[in-house]
């Protein structure tokens, strides 16, 4: 039914983004400084990265709320490995592998049982958060020696700083005018878009989202596809965790724990249906930018950060209500048109 590009949800989001930037710029011209604008994205791109991964999962009609814990887990794994003397490149690979593995574990349990994905990933959310916060003490108990008082346990509260420049560049560096975190985000979003719209795997995701049962009978490898998509989501969450770690130049087990509302809002505002079968990575990306700049803009205007979640929550509910409303209007219009054609046809015959 998409008659033109201009009626698509993504186009509306892009328009909202432009209007938002103009309005915020009119109120506070300093906001429109292009360099500021680009670099302020570093505050919130971790939400977009995680949301892109979640978009793929939600496409299948699934859900994964454990991503926020995987962010912290990847961060603390990187930090502890670094303190233990592992070269930083290997630390990054290890942290990403942990994210991938955690996601694949989610996917395996979800695909092999009929338990609601929300329940499974709720358990995983606690499990990964607990492992992340417990890892330092576990290493102490296992007798790994580390320089400095308090052993690994001290890192649990303070975070691990002193990460090398070559790593923190991921979060704080820039290529020309473009900050590295934004480049990583665009690369991941582009990769996910390609995966979703240009590969067989992407078609499988949508098929499963429409009906897992039908997909299975059609010969779609449902289990393999689900494990892969949850693994990719875990990977995205780990990347988000590492970008955030590099940006804060400190590895902590509780990084990203507050991001759940923002991540799901970005996905849903981006046009994905949580019932599956509908969604777009571009929409999620744009929605993430809209949300992020809104937050930045409100803070720049001196509005208390306490009000921001109220507005984000209202946006989430409002956008879904709007879509439902549009759907109802569309159905009504189609019904009326069908009725009129029918009547014309009957009238013509009579």
């Amino acid at each position, binding site marked *: 039914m998409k008659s033109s590009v201009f009626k698509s949800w993504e186009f509306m989001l892009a328009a909202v983004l432009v209007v938002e930037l103009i309005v915020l710029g009119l109120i506070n011209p300093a906001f429109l400084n292009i360099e500021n604008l680009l670099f302020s994205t570093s505050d919130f791109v971790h939400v977009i990265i995680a949301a892109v991964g979640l978009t793929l999962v939600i496409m299948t009609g699934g859900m994964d709320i454990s991503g926020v814990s995987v962010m912290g887990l990847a961060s603390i794994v990187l930090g502890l490995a670094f303190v233990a003397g592992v070269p930083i490149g290997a630390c990054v690979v290890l942290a990403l592998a942990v994210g991938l593995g955690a996601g694949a574990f989610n996917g395996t349990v979800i695909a092999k049982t009929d338990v609601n994905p929300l329940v499974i990933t709720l*358990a995983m959310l606690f499990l990964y958060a607990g492992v992340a916060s417990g890892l330092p003490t576990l290493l102490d108990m296992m007798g790994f020696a580390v320089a400095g008082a308090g052993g690994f346990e001290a890192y649990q509260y303070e975070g691990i700083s002193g990460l090398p420049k070559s790593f923190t560049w991921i979060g704080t560096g820039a290529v020309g005018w473009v900050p590295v975190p934004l480049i990583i985000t665009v690369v991941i979003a582009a990769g996910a878009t390609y995966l979703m719209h240009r590969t067989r795997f992407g078609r499988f995701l949508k098929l499963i989202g429409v009906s897992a049962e039908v997909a299975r009978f059609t010969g779609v490898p449902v289990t393999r596809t689900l494990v892969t998509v949850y693994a990719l989501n875990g990977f995205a969450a780990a990347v988000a965790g590492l970008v955030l770690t590099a940006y804060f130049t400190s590895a902590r087990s509780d990084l990203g724990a507050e991001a759940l509302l923002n991540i799901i809002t970005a996905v849903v505002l981006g046009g994905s249906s*949580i019932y599956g079968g509908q969604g777009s990575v571009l929409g999620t990306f744009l929605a993430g930018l809209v949300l992020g700049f809104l937050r930045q803009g409100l803070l720049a205007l001196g509005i208390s950060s306490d009000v921001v*979640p109220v507005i*984000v929550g209202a946006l989430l509910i409002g956008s879904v209500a709007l879509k439902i409303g549009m759907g109802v209007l569309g159905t009504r219009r189609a019904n009326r048109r069908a009725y009129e054609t029918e009547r014309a046809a009957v009238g013509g015959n009579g």
Partner: protein
Amino acid sequence: MMKILKSRELLVLVLLVGMILAVATQNKAVLYPITLINIVNSSLFLMLIAVGQMFVVQTRGIDVSVGAIAGLSAVIFGFALNAGMPLPLAMICALITGALAGAVNAVGVVFIGIPPIIMTLGTLGAYRGFMRVLTGGSWIESIPQNIKSFAVTRYMNIPLMVWAVAVLVIVVAVLLWRIRAARNFYAVGDNADGAYLLGINVKATRFAAFTLSGLFAGAAAIVFVGQIGFVPMQTGNGQELKAIAAVVLGGVSLMGGTGSVWSAVIGALFLTAVDSMMIFLHVPGSWNNAVAGAVLLGVVVFDYLIRRTVRNRQLAARAAEMRRAEADQDRGATSTTTREMAS
């Protein structure tokens, strides 16, 4: 044995007792009455929001805003007390706040048709933000300290608060058992279309579930403030996920239509007991979440395996029966044909 395994409340209760006894072999202090009373006492908050959550999950919804509702109700409770209201009136204010907040969720879910997780996630942010806006981000500390009397006064060594919640839970359980309309929660959760055809008011039932969830969150707020005597900004933070974990652990399926008040009670007790057991085993508190997550995961997967085994057995039995019936029919068919040929 199979019957115990099939009732999730009993299964978790057995697990709970088993866990406490296992820990007791390492550290006898677990079995002191005071320890057990303390576990129950510190589970009251989670228990109440879990009971509220139970209604919503039973009707196939989910309410992730209960922690924020409890926070908001606690703030209103604190304001009311500081304004010099008598305790009962302040309590009613807190309960009304909770019920209203729940009703807002209900309006979005029932009348607009927003998916429950989206609606309540949105209001989670909104209520929490609103709570901070109301207080300006600072704690409410100057509450008259006589409200703590409920938590401090003990009858038979057990705090009055525990007695009060126990009475409340039993009353709710009896009401749900005796009132016919209470069955509507099960019916709507199991099959909303079927319930509609039976003449059950589906919308009203779901509306009631969300409102009750808010109401119990308000009650939880009263308990919380009564126990600690002030209102910190973190009130109810992260408790929404614990409440869902508690009811799911206790056997309420997110697909609706199952579970009881006891699911919520036992689930909440178990999750709280896990935290205490860690202390008695000298495991650092940083592992609490990992253990809670592992238990929840283990129980739901185990539950799935049992259901699968039961279903497979039923299917096998039915298949055998059909094969037998088919064989009988064949024999019958051949005998009639021979009779026909003979005639």
